[in-house]
């Protein structure tokens, strides 16, 4: 049985899980379990995760985060976010977004799909190291309210990363599986469960009906542009105001200042989850500004209150769709890092009139559910089934910009619906149809997914051909379209042009490029990582040299000094494996110091790297 891992590809953090003999658990331990969804450009490669996170302040314009908010979107839809982010975003053909790296020409542009792929590659590598086996297939989670374009973008990212997507499942549903199948949780196994999922950049509310082995999603609602990031932004806006009162000349538009503000906001938010008040200091060395102040939890809560109310509005909506009242919800499950905020939790509790389940780490629960689903898909268990829905109606553009639904929202998937089209004029051999997704009446309020062209219709009198178009939404919630002309029995050709996504051709081109560069990339990436390790090892040795002087003999110290010189030479070279070997030797030489502070920190650095690569 080939393992299928579960991946929670998050706005802020990503992690993966699988079912071990002892049960489902996140893969990796401590820092190695979580990969911050951050990338930083170095030379011609990317640093991903913790390494990239460290460069957010020092190298803001080359460090990219919150990529998930860009997936399958266009510039107009991002709105204010474009100005808030410290990195540059441009729009290419078919409204495809690209992150632009570089101060001047020639720029390097990357699609969100490619960037997400880098995160997935990192997770794949980490999982392979931790499991000691190759990983080829994964279940990847997405917000339930992700539309077709966003799902397609996620799938394309996986494809670029060399991962086969066994299934795309919705985050709240994954969480429900994790809770529902965990015997330790006293969750009612028959009844209605509300899963409230507030992550870094997205919000979902799903109502599930649990009965026996079946987890059936009844209704889902959400907002793919609302999350903890918005709490941070609200804080950033307040921080700016406070600083301006004391330093009216302050400027915040440069990437470094944006990153400093964002990071401070993040830590204030975290601090206020545990204490009623927190002090903070903001340093803008270039502007010679240092600002210190306090933030009270009441102020924070009233700041985020309108955002939380927006999520409760969604909860009301989803209950209406499910034809249920608050009282009929038997259980409430909280998912996502932002539900840790006490102000959020209190409001949910009041709304549903019951205390929510939080026993499974809200950061891990989605990955764990995905891991369980992966286990099921790999044939490991058959004792439960997840029946999910398509979140938003799918349909086509009709007269005057109106939206005509073909598959309604909250329909259980997989689902198929067919629609018959015909020609308007004699001998017409092709028909163009625009596909949209949404719940509103006018296409301008819905999302354009793409256009398909029906070709190869046999020439007939206008209105005579009967072209049956089949809209099929698979168990991943992804749409495919096929067509045939019924009078002639001829299969019509269909070409789908995605509006916010990559065509198969583009995906393959990116993959070819990355394959050609794969070996170089790998060496380069390793070089970068080992160089950074060496730097930190040197720092550790220098800071603790006094310990070495008392604990080691003159000869031992000389050996260490000489080896440091060898490593310095290797750093200038291009051979990552040689550098690794020299670093290992340095590690050996400092081993006698293992029980001293210096030895421990050096060893941790070295072990951290080797577990990672």
């Amino acid at each position: 049985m080939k393992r299928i891992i579960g991946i929670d590809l998050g706005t802020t953090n990503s992690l993966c899980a699988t079912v071990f003999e002892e049960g489902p658990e996140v893969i990796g331990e401590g820092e190695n379990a979580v990969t911050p969804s951050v990338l930083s450009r170095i030379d011609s490669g990317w640093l991903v995760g913790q390494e990239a996170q460290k460069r957010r302040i020092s190298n803001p314009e080359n460090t990219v985060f919150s990529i998930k908010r860009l997936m399958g979107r266009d510039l107009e839809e991002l709105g204010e976010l474009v100005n808030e982010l410290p990195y540059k975003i441009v729009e290419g053909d078919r409204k495809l977004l690209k992150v632009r790296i570089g101060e001047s020409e020639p720029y390097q542009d990357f699609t969100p799909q490619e960037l997400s792929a880098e995160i997935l590659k990192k997770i794949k590598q980490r999982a392979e190291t931790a499991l000691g086996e190759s990983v080829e297939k994964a279940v990847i989670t997405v917000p339930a309210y992700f539309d077709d374009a966003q799902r397609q973008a996620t799938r394309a990212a996986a494809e670029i990363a060399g991962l086969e997507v066994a299934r795309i499942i919705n985050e709240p549903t994954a969480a429900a599986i994790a809770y529902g199948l965990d015997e330790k949780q006293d969750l009612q196994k028959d009844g209605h469960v509300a899963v409230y999922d507030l992550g870094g950049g997205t919000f979902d509310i799903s109502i599930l009906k649990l009965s026996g082995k079946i987890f059936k999603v009844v209704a889902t609602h959400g907002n793919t542009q609302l999350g903890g990031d918005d709490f941070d932004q609200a804080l950033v806006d307040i921080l700016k105001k406070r600083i301006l009162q004391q330093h009216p000349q302050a400027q915040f538009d440069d990437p470094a200042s944006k990153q400093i503000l964002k990071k401070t906001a993040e830590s204030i938010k975290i601090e206020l989850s545990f204490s009623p008040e927190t002090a903070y200091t903001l340093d803008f060395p270039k502007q010679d500004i240092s600002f210190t102040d306090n933030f009270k939890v009441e102020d924070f809560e009233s700041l985020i209150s309108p955002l939380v109310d927006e999520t409760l509005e969604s909860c009301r909506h989803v209950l209406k769709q499910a034809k249920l009242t608050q009282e009929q919800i038997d259980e409430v499950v909280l998912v996502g890092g932002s539900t840790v905020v006490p102000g959020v939790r209190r409001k949910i509790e009041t709304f549903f009139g019951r205390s929510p389940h939080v026993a499974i780490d809200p950061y891990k629960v989605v990955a764990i559910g995905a891991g369980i689903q992966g286990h099921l898909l790999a044939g490991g268990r058959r004792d439960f089934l997840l029946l999910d829905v398509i979140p938003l109606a799918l349909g086509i553009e009709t007269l005057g910009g109106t939206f005509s639904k073909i598959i309604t929202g909250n329909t259980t998937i997989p689902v198929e619906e067919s629609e018959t089209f015909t020609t308007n004029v004699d001998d017409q051999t092709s028909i163009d149809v625009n596909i949209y997704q949404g719940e509103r009446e006018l296409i301008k309020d819905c999302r354009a997914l793409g256009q398909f062209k029906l070709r190869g219709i046999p020439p007939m009198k206008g209105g005579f051909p009967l072209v049956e178009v089949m809209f099929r939404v698979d168990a991943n919630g992804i749409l495919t379209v096929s067509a045939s002309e019924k009078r002639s029995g001829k299969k019509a050709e269909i070409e789908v042009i995605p509006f916010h996504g990559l065509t198969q051709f583009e995906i393959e081109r990116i993959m070819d490029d990355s394959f050609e560069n794969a070996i170089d990339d790998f060496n380069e990436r390793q070089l970068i990582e080992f160089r950074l390790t060496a730097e930190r090892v040197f720092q550790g040795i220098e800071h603790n040299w006094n310990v070495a002087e008392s604990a080691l003999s003159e000869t031992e110290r000389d050996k260490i000094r000489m080896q440091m010189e060898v490593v310095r030479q290797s750093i200038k070279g291009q051979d990552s494996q040689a550098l690794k070997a020299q670093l290992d030797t340095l590690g050996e030489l400092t081993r006698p110091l293992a029980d001293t502070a210096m030895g421990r920190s050096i060893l941790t650095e070295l072990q951290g790297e080797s577990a990672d690569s």
Partner: protein
Amino acid sequence: MAYSEKVIDHYSEPRNVGSLDKSDLNVGTGLVGAPECGDVMKLQIKVDPETKEIIDAKFKTFGCGSAIASSSLATEWVKGKSIDEAMSIQNTDIVEELSLPPVKIHCSVLAEDAIKAAISDYKSRNQD
């Protein structure tokens, strides 16, 4: 597919919305409905008693955009036509003019039925 300006116009600014005096002997009223979707449409024509030409037409439709556009177009077309000419308007003409997709063809049928109903109402009231 891009809709022509004219078509979008019938949708966003439908012509001839309103009512004619039902009791006027020269007015014929057609009331039809589409059970597929629950749309209701009232279409009225005013006929010149001398020339038997349709000199005015009004409609009121409770339904989707396509039904409204279809009735708007139908009222535009019947004006100036004789009742016999108006009788020959086919729903397929409306489908073609408005590029109605298959899911909305019944809207054009509704408009055709409304014209016929209005004419037959007029005729039944002016038999002598």
